[in-house]
């Protein structure tokens, strides 16, 4: 079968018989119909608006998770601390498409030092009890190895405490870590940490990168999302809270995360983005892709669309 482009030149539409048509009237009617339909759907179904999770709400509802996350930020073992570009330069971090490492090539453009940005600076900037001043001094004076030994030991002890409750951690050599994490928890529960992570020395601010990264490092936010069918293995971000259609048009992007080899790959995000880029380019270039551009002729759906025309030709 010859592809469409090799057939004889298409005739001009102006050469065919015509019928009366009122473009502006059709548009006006369509606009009114869509506006009424929108008004009706909005009145019937409204729109979802679940409140965002604040650091205050998180630390009050799950102090164990908050403390464990704060300790991981301090010891540079959290997801963000190990993320690589664009947040930090963790060796070996960063996804690849085959040999192509675009994530690392982009570099560290949004620097995040989890210990400094999420824990130490907020503690220094808040009214500082004497024991916290001493804890901050002890932390600064210690070597990196010593700091990591403290945080690892405290993280381990937190994991063994009933419900991860920081008040029930077994005694041990944790250095200043319990004092730092405990003070950060108090600050967060009082609502001070939300503003500190956002403002970071500015008055006006619209960048929520740091608070969201900190929140996402814990398990509390993910637990809430899972309960709202928003996790990655639940077709993730194409959904939204409640029974709303969400971004149904992202189904193909989300689909790849549900199947192998993507769902088990450490480069899943990069591979799926590369695949979607190719497919998107393919969509734009359909008229030039042999085979694909002939699908309409093979499927013959067009005979249904133009059935009156073909019936008249018989």
């Amino acid at each position, binding site marked *: 079968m010859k592809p*469409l482009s090799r*057939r004889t030149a298409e*005739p*001009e*539409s102006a*050469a*065919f*018989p015509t*019928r009366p*048509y009122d*473009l*502006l009237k*059709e548009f006006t009617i*369509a606009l009114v119909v*869509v*506006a009424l*339909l*929108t*008004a009706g*759907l*909005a009145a019937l179904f*409204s*729109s979802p*608006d679940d*409140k965002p999770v604040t650091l205050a709400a998180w630390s009050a509802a799950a102090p164990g998770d908050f403390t464990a996350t704060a300790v991981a930020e301090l010891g540079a073992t959290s997801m963000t601390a190990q993320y690589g*570009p*664009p947040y930090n330069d963790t060796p070996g971090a960063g996804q690849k498409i085959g040999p192509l490492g*675009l*994530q690392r*090539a*982009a570099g560290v*453009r*949004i620097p995040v030092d989890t210990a400094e940005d999420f824990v130490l600076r907020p503690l220094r900037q808040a009214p500082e009890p004497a024991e916290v001043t001493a804890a901050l001094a002890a932390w600064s004076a210690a070597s990196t190895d010593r700091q990591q030994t403290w945080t690892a030991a405290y993280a381990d002890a937190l994991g063994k405490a009933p419900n991860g409750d920081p008040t029930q951690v077994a005694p041990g050599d944790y250095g200043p870590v319990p004092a730092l994490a405990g003070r950060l928890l108090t600050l967060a529960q009082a609502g001070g940490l939300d503003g500190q992570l956002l403002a970071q020395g500015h008055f006006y601010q*619209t*960048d*929520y*990168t740091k608070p*969201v*990264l900190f*929140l996402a490092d814990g398990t509390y936010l993910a637990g809430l999302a899972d309960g709202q069918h*928003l996790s*990655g293995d639940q077709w993730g*971000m194409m959904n*939204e809270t409640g029974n*709303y259609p969400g*971004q149904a*048009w992202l189904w193909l992007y989300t689909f790849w995360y549900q199947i192998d080899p993507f769902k088990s790959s450490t480069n899943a*995000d*990069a591979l799926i*983005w590369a695949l979607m880029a190719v497919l*998107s380019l393919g969509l734009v270039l*359909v008229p030039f892709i042999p085979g694909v551009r002939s699908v*309409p*002729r093979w499927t013959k759906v*067009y005979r249904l*669309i*133009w059935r*009156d*025309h*073909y019936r008249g030709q018989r």
Partner: protein
Amino acid sequence: MSDPATSREVRSGGWTGAVRRYAVRTLPPEKLLPDTQPAYMASWIYVFGVLTVSALVVVVATGCLLALEGPGWWHVSSVGKYVNSLHLWSVELFMFFMVIHLWGKFFMAAWRGRRAMTWMTGAVCFLASVGAAFTGYLTQQNFDSQWISGQAKDGLNAVGIGAWFNVLDFGQMLMWHIVLLPLALGGLTGLHVLLVRRRGIVPPIDATVPTPGAVEGRL
């Protein structure tokens, strides 16, 4: 030999005149605002193009209403909540109509007869719309935007885009959502519609022009 006076008149007007002559030659008024269409244009599938444009108008209008009071309004006002719902549902309708329109044009092989650019601008409109809707979800300032931005950053960071297009930066995403992407989408949609008007509605596959006398004038 042409009349020098006529030739001067034809070429008058400098750049402005040249652009006007090109525009009128390319899209004469009867093509731009036609009062007839080919008789073969007789299917409900054709309605989805104008429905898509209509829904886009409602999306932009409701977005402008939200802009009047700012991004926090709809969280604290019942009127604002309703306007936000209008915006959400007009987007859902817009995407639904556009996808049906796109599939319809695919099965018509609507790129035939020098209409490839019409298809391409339409496909890019679809991709730009996905981006515009996505940034809308990121700027809702609620749990959805918190979660979606946290998830979406990984895909964008993995291919290096996240270093410049930071989905966790509310201010940046709001600007993309209410300025850059609407401008791009509006411009592309305008170009797409003008291309449709310029090339006309694609004839049926394998259609041949009726011979004179076979058809009694207009249907």
